[in-house]
């Protein structure tokens, strides 16, 4: 397996980041997951954290080096994550059950399998065109499909944040399982939260991300999304993966899993982000203090001959 991957989660202009993202891979399988904790509800980030952690752990346990039954893995991972959130709410006697959207994608034998609940999306981009993407479980999407509103009205509709499926919450999630897709060389898979896609049309997203150097394009894409989010910018998260077929020349940034042991799983789970109000993120070390004093005294003596 060979691929180039980029993941990043940003806080936007919110006080906390309720998005959680992770990717893990063994020699022959790769998992990506994006969860967007629902801010209107209590403890949205807890729901997202539980879901991502649980799903990553399950992958680490089962993908040695491949997952035996992929549809079963996806459905069990999602339903059990849902129940893990409910258990947490019961255990801590929370007033409301935390909720999160979820999108996860498993690649094995050059085929992508994905499932989602809510409005975090997966895009498959091939040769500069949108091959397919997930349909949001949102009220506006449903109204659009019923012909009640136009595509343009979906962007501005007051109910655009209303979802009818998510993990956590009172009802069992409605999960959409996509038809597996064989990946071609240079296919681009994008998983993102609504903060990242909300202010961009599909063709804009493709134009920004589908560039030769993914690792350079992805942060620029997030910059643009953040810019458009303006003063109220939501949390925005992205995992972007460029697939490389076997036998094609690879670039220095490409991850190749061919040399991994059959039992190893590599995981990238973003650490639990600190809320912005928690204060200074930067430490001020002894040596920095000494250096600052030396600089100030040098300036004093330079200007006070």
């Amino acid at each position, binding site marked *: 397996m060979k691929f180039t991957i980029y993941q990043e989660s940003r806080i936007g202009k919110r006080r906390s980041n309720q998005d959680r993202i992770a990717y893990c891979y063994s020699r022959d399988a790769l998992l990506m997951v994006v969860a967007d904790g629902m801010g209107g509800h209590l403890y949205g980030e807890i729901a997202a954290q539980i879901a991502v952690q649980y799903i990553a752990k399950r992958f680490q346990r089962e993908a040695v080096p491949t997952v035996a039954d992929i549809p079963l893995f996806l459905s069990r991972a999602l339903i059990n994550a849902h129940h893990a959130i409910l258990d947490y709410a019961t255990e801590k006697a929370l007033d409301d059950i935390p909720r999160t959207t979820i999108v996860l994608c498993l690649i094995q034998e050059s085929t992508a399998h994905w499932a989602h609940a809510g409005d975090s999306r997966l895009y498959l981009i091939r040769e500069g065109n949108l091959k397919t993407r997930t349909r949001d479980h949102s009220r506006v999407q449903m109204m659009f499909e019923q012909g009640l509103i136009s595509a343009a009205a979906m962007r501005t509709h007051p109910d655009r944040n209303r979802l009818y499926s998510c993990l956590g919450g009172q009802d069992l999630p409605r999960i959409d399982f996509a038809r597996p897709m064989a990946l071609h060389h240079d296919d681009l898979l994008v998983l993102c939260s609504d903060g990242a896609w909300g202010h961009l049309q599909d063709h804009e997203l493709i134009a920004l991300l589908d560039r030769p150097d993914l690792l350079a394009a992805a942060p620029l894409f997030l910059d643009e999304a953040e810019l458009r989010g303006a003063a109220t910018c939501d949390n925005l998260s992205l995992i972007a993966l460029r697939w490389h077929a076997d036998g094609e020349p690879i670039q220095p940034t490409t991850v190749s899993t061919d040399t991994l042991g059959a039992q190893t799983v590599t995981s990238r789970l973003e650490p639990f982000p600190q809320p912005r109000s928690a204060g200074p993120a930067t430490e001020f070390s002894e040596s920095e203090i000494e250096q600052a004093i030396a600089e100030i005294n040098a300036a*004093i003596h330079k200007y006070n001959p």
Partner: protein
Amino acid sequence: MPPQANAPLPSGYQLDQYRIDRQLSLGGFSIVYLAYDAQGSAVAIKEYLPNALDLRRDGQIEPVVLAEHEAAFRYGMKCFFEEGRALAKLMHPNLVRVLNFFRANGTVYMVMRFERGRTLHDLIQKHRGALRERFIRGLFIRLLNGLREVHAHKLLHLDIKPSNIYVRTDGTPVLLDFGAARQTAVSGQPALRAMYTPGFASPEQLDRSAPLGPWTDIYSVGASLYACLGGSAPPPASERQRQDSYQPAAAAFAKDHSAQLLETIDWCLQLDPLARPQSVYALQKAMARCEPDQPVPGTLFTDLGAKIKAFIGRS
């Protein structure tokens, strides 16, 4: 100002090469002392000691920083260094002068030249509305020279107000307290929002609606001038943005002051940053442009010192 949480260093305490005499003032993040150096000259020493953290009890010397406050303490120290860095580069008769910067007792100290006089705030309180135009002009023309030097180093003061303008016994001003000063060219916006003084802070400092620049300090200069005339600051910018109850200086003080000074004040106090003088030089030019029947102020300083002494003598 909340009550003093930290005990000051005792009188007679030997701090490095300086002997502490007494506490002069208390700030949110520091205590300022009068001290004497080895040659017996007076200096002002600013000790970094955040008042919000209870760090030093009576009889203690070394502040005790609890583990949970360590990060906040270090962060504040970083800001204290910013002030030192800003001031060390500046040498101007109308700017406070830093002489030394050192570490001791687990905290940091900034040694400054000691100035004799009193703050403009005290003068305004004492002579509520009765400060003479000639005095005000002379003071501010010199102060603006200092501010030009600050801006020339790509720094902004960001906390200009009468209590940060010290008037020496000879009547010349010194701009104090660069605790809010920030490098403008490097960061664009201050990394941390200082506590601003309502009435003297510009609207863009409060809501970041526009980039900060020389025009930001100029708003505060305008507000300080206004306070010299009216005895108090104009309404806070935040309030003015909702409903502007600002009474233009040109209308409020027309009886006692020249139209040209009053128009300049109103110009500085425009809410729109672009509508204000864009540089200190532009402001100085406006202030120096005198009507023919008025004597040129500022240069005629001989009798001013005496006047100030008279003010002080009355106190």
